[in-house]
């Protein structure tokens, strides 16, 4: 109810940073040099194309991890008729997100200095712990709710997160 709308909340400081980090992670995990790279900040997008792999074919195929706007409710909304999240990618490469189970601080590793729970490219099972959200010394495990391959880590280690914030993007049935 504001004629001169208050400024939209500034993008979380880590938004572009973490996109950048995600892209780097994706590039790290890929053995080949990409043909095209696209980041975007506000709508949170990472897009990378590699030249087609199959011999005899030309052109590119694209492995896209288009990030949906963060903050979609993770709770069922019984009173609302609105779907809780935009429909996920159709076809084989269905994207999904692992969300923060509470507001707190996100950690990628069980403890400082140790290896992260997951890296981009890892395959995860349903129930596999992929991170921690800490609130006032209380550690809440972050778990994948279905199997998939980690496509991007959306939030930096030790960054503050809101409840419901997408932390990790996965692809259900990763393409080769």
């Amino acid at each position, binding site marked *: 109810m504001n004629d001169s709308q208050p400024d939209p909340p500034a993008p979380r400081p880590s938004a572009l940073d973490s996109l950048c980090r995600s892209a780097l992670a994706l590039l790290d995990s890929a053995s080949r040099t990409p043909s095209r790279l696209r980041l975007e900040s506000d709508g949170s997008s990472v897009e990378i194309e590699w030249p087609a792999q199959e011999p005899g074919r030309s052109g590119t195929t694209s492995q896209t991890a288009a990030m949906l706007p963060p903050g979609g409710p993770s709770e069922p909304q019984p009173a609302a008729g609105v779907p809780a999240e935009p429909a996920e990618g159709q076809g084989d490469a269905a994207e999904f997100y692992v969300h923060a189970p509470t*507001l707190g601080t996100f950690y990628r590793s069980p403890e400082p200095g140790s290896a992260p729970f997951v890296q981009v490219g890892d395959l995860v099972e349903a129930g596999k712990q992929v991170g921690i959200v800490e609130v006032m010394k209380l550690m809440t495990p972050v778990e994948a709710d279905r199997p998939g391959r980690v496509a991007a880590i959306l939030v930096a280690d030790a960054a503050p997160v809101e409840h419901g914030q997408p932390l990790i993007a996965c692809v259900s049935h990763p393409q080769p």
Partner: protein
Amino acid sequence: MFSKILIANRGEIALRIARTCRELGIRTVIAHSAADKDSLPVAYADESLQVGPAAPRRSYLNSAAIVEAALQAGAQAIHPGYGFLSEDPDFAEICEANGIAFIGPCASLMARLGDKAEARKMAAEAGLPVLPGSPAATRGADEALQAADEVGYPVMIKAAAGGGGRGMAIVRRRQDLPSVYARTQADAQAIFGDPRLYLERYLERTRHLEVQVIGDSFGNTVHLGVRDCSVQRRRQKLIEESPAPGIPAPLAERMGKAAADAARYVGYTGAGTYEFLLDSDHQFYFIEVNCRIQVEHPVTEMVTGLDLVREQILIAAGRPASLTQPDVQIRGVSMECRVNAEDPARDFAPAPGTIAEFAVPGGPFTRIETHGRVGLVVPPYYDSLLAKAVVWAPDRDQAIARMERVLGEFLVRGPGITTTTGFLRQVLANPLFLAGAHTTAMVDQMLDKQATVGQ
């Protein structure tokens, strides 16, 4: 002064608090649940952080996440509103431990006043009249029987950790006490996580009066007149007004002074309410203290001109209250009606849904506090308060005529949505209410009568 405050609440009170913050030039961050992410208070606040899912236990009652949110956002203070964590001493303590000002009395005092048996003891020490009853929480039904024999029946059994009209039961006959005691104990354990009970003489046909007080950290404690909250359905307030109708000024002054003295005695800081019962002989008895801003605070604001949320914030920031007792002048009459998303035809069952049409009343001396808007999904997880209609007038008759006009202007429509405006208008037309001669029994009697007629 604070530069940023976290609001740990939702609905109309969250918006109410954000408005005063904006007037004070204080930035706001609202800690909200997933169910409220598209709500007006969230849009209105300068920043927002989603602390948890819809379930209050994991969002609005999640002390750790809320304090963490305040730390993340760099807020120096938390306003808890009413309900939720507003009277939780543990939460206040966590705030204090993290260097965040809790906008309310200090944790230790809140703990003592939150124990109703203890609060009653302290009030008696401060000279407030209390009903005859057990000197402290009873240690079982036998001790309760003994205490009841001394005070005489009927008695009211109350949860020590209770408040807000829950966890209490009337016992009229000695032989019923053990079973009612056991049931109330179980309720108290279930609702408040604390089975302790105490008991008091129960008075029939009483009025529910309360005195708003504010106290600052410089020892200035002020009373701001008497509110009458006798229009209640099953101990839930529906209509409140100030001053209390038919209460002679000297009595109101005596009650006000007694409450302010009692608040001063315990070193109360912030805004608080001393609740009393008034019997038919105009004797008043202390019941409990509410250590929070109350739903009905606007009626006090309208007759005193004070912004109570502003006072809370100033006091929590270590500033003096804006006025001293001689500055307080009660002018005219103010009345508040709670417009709930409930269906009176279905025993006031919550009627959540989506608002498709919404128009708020306006015009002279009319104040509407609401988070309602077209498209609002009234969620089923929280209380059903949708709007507060507040009016002011030079006298009570004009205030009632104005409120009747205002309720008639409300337009709230949408799938699933029903409101209590129609029922409130019936109450306004009740001759007992019009005469200001109603007790807390009036509404339940109206409903019993309607139920009988309806059969």
